[in-house]
């Protein structure tokens, strides 16, 4: 009795699982290429916001490595670095670094750096700063973030890489100094990291980005 009952239960549930699973798996196979493409397009859009697509000719999305430097890149997890090349020669990199000391929490940045060490562009990928105060680092709300374009480690000099209130050249927002301060510091750190590891960054062999690892990072918005 018990055995019979159990087997029937098992069969029913197993049957449903099997049918359902089959259908889903089928749909998965149908949609998989589209999904891959959508993910790629999404990341590319961010990348192209910081690196002019006209400058490179490689598949920047797949030319990716991960690096690890909690001190300078602000994250104790490996950080993706995308590399742009033209005719095989390094043009720029885009580093997904983190400003760990935002007002509310860490701020995820995408820092694009030309091969010569000047900033190609900076974007905020995700943050939790106070809406209305700290969120002016988003490009959508304020063009403050564009102020990094063209800067480099020497422009301004070391002392200048601060918000104005601390004696640097970058604006702060009224009523919110901490957020810009954190971003400026993180961008500066990222530049320093690039300076130190420039050669290796381009030399290292690319890993094909595991599809879900980067979709995860963007999902957290």
């Amino acid at each position, binding site marked *: 009795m018990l055995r019979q009952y159990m087997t029937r239960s*098992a069969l029913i549930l*197993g049957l449903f*699982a*099997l049918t359902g699973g089959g259908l889903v*798996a089928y749909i998965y196979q149908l949609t998989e290429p589209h999904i891959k493409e959508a993910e790629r397009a999404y990341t590319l859009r961010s990348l192209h916001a910081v690196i002019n697509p006209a400058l490179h000719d490689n598949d920047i999305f797949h030319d990716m490595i991960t690096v690890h430097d909690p001190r300078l890149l602000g994250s104790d997890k490996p950080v993706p670095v995308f590399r742009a090349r033209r005719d095989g020669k390094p043009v720029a990199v885009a580093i997904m670094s983190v400003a760990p000391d935002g007002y509310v929490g860490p701020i995820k940045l995408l820092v694009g750096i030309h091969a010569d060490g000047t900033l190609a562009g900076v974007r905020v990928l995700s943050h939790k700063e106070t809406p209305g105060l700290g969120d002016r680092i988003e490009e959508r709300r304020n063009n403050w973030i564009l102020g990094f374009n063209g800067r480099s480690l020497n422009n301004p000099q070391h002392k200048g890489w601060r918000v104005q209130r601390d004696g640097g050249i970058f604006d702060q927002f009224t009523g919110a100094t901490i957020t810009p301060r954190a971003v400026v510091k993180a961008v500066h750190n990222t530049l320093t990291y690039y300076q130190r590891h420039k050669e290796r960054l381009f030399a290292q062999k690319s890993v094909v980005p595991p599809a879900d690892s980067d979709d995860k990072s963007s999902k957290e918005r």
Partner: protein
Amino acid sequence: MLSALLALGALGILFGLLLGYAAIRYKVEGDPLVEKIDAILPQTQCGQCGYPGCRPYAEAIARDEADINRCPPGGETVIVSLADLLGRDPKPLDDECGEEKPKMVAYIHEEICIGCTLCIQACPVDAILGAAKQMHTIIESECTGCELCVAPCPVDCIDMVPVKQSLDTWKWPAPPPPPYEQPTDSGPDPQPAGAH
């Protein structure tokens, strides 16, 4: 594709086995809920709820076949208790069942009674005394006021009379709500429904 099928199928079969096992191994019979519901009902046994007595109604509620607002003798108090027990929202009494009335008892005009025993057969709680061709009497303390004996009487000798108040049964009235809290228009009233 295949691995997906295998994995899900395996999970399904595993869980099916588990639940099938548990269903037999941990089988429970009986439903204590009915007892609890029955304990709340007033036991008037009047059938106004549409069921032949309080217990059948309790069973219907437990089976989720009947709503909780069908017992007029119990009135608001019973509805609220049932709602509490079953985790539902209280609602007003279903007016197709009847309305809440003050408690009554039956009274037989003994001089009219012809001793037909029809009322005895109707009374759900054996609150009527008497035998064929003899005068019948209500045992007042037993009568639930269900009115079931009224209709069968061929000579209309049974009346429902209000339960008499005495110093012992007198209740302190609720203090009247302050005038500013008088309900302004229809709708559920959170206040005690005034003095009794």
